[in-house]
């Protein structure tokens, strides 16, 4: 299945990777996946102060880091913040200790999906999924396809209809997807990471 994950949210008890459930190594896993050192954070809150989305987050970026430092995977993987973050790097740019906070958010998102925890922001999760699948299929992103899927899924068919029609008429959105010529090369890359979804240790 070309899915981000194969577990249906909410129906089965969340699968826990042993190294997450254990709790003690959570900090190290996050450090490893993001290539950062969360211990470096001294909570000056520059990241939270500068974040353009902080109004809509339930935890400020530095609070997320604090919970990671305290090995509390449950709070962190269930929070909205990791999904609201778009990776604009404003926080990473401002951090006096040069922690790439956006990379930590990437790692946490990956861990949340992998441990089957229902995302706190379902629409954003679905959006990622459709974009991801479109790239998997074509090697390049077909915006029309991904956006249509997203609109159908969220039942929000008529928002942006006017702009969408204008974009279609001016040739900004294309009806037919562009393909990579050697699609098997792209599939091979996707498959490689798909099969290794469950194991951190073998990751790299």
């Amino acid at each position: 299945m070309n899915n981000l994950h194969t577990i249906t949210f909410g129906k089965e008890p969340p699968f826990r990777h042993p190294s997450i459930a254990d709790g003690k190594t959570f900090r190290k896993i996050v450090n490893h996946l993001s290539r950062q050192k969360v211990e470096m954070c001294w909570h000056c809150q520059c990241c939270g102060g500068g974040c353009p989305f902080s109004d809509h987050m339930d935890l400020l970026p530095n609070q997320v880091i604090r919970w990671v430092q305290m090995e509390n995977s449950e709070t962190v993987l269930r929070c909205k913040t990791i999904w609201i973050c778009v990776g604009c790097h404003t926080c990473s740019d401002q951090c006096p200790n040069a922690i790439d906070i956006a990379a930590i958010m990437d790692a946490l998102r990956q861990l949340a999906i992998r441990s089957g925890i229902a995302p706190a922001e379902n629409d954003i999760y679905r959006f990622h999924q459709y974009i991801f699948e479109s790239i998997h299929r074509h090697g390049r992103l077909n915006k029309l396809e991904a956006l249509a899927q997203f609109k159908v899924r969220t039942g929000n068919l008529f928002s942006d209809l006017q702009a969408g029609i204008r974009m279609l008429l001016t040739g900004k959105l294309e009806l037919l997807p562009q393909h990579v010529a050697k699609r098997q090369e792209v599939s091979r890359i996707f498959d490689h990471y798909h099969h290794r979804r469950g194991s951190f240790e073998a990751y790299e």
Partner: protein
Amino acid sequence: MNEKHLAYYPGCTLASTAREIDEALHRVCERLDIRLETLPDWNCCGSSSVHAVRPQLAVSLAGRNLIQAQSMAKDMMVMCAGCLNRLRSAHVRLLEDPVTRRVNATLLGDRLQQEIGIHHLLDILPQRMAEPAYRGVVCKSLEGLRYTAYYGCLLAAPPELKRYPRLHGTIESIMQRLGAIHCCWGYEAKCCGSFLSVARPDIVSPMVTDILQSARQAGAECIVTACAMCQLNLELRSTEKDRLPVFSIVELAAYGMGESDWPTWFRKHLVDPMPLFEKRVLRHRAAHHGP
């Protein structure tokens, strides 16, 4: 005149929703003797969604493009700020991290042997326009147009990419050659909302309105941006009645260099820039230089 040969990576946005920027970019490069050769079989760089949920996969996807550029033995040019970030960070990882190197060598069938220069257009354009051979390349002016430069967040790099020069100030230097008037403001590098514009428009609309209002307060009549996604978000999510037009820097540079296709590019904008362009640029030109 020294020709410059570069491998060009368009990216998904410039190949679809921002086709006009792609076209203008090719025209500008032609005028400056920069020969662009598109990568033979480029794929998505792994931007936004892929790297948001599978960072390592994004590195490999970007790596496939880098390997192609390597086999062309040319430096790369990228116009999309998102692609630039992804390609550069994959480049750093593929050269410096032994494990990523090993995993991707088998996955991509080749290793990255040496550093490849990955340039943004704004890396190249200002210096190129300053060379004596290209002094006369700007033949039409935008005199009287009041603008603010908007770089967006992605050109502000994460810590691992601090080794690359900052691009801030380059839009201003190009616009200065075109004769436009710069209005200072504090939102140059503010995030436009990125993909949340689709997933959560309720968050992005107030942000975009805030950006546009502050541009107005600074006295600008339009915003000039370097990022196609910023342009789209600023146009799409504005809730104001009288929306500020947003231009891409390459469109205006192409206009200044005497390209005549600009009306077809402007027609693709979601906010029609023609009334402003007519009022400030064309009328001004007619008054001073004749019809």
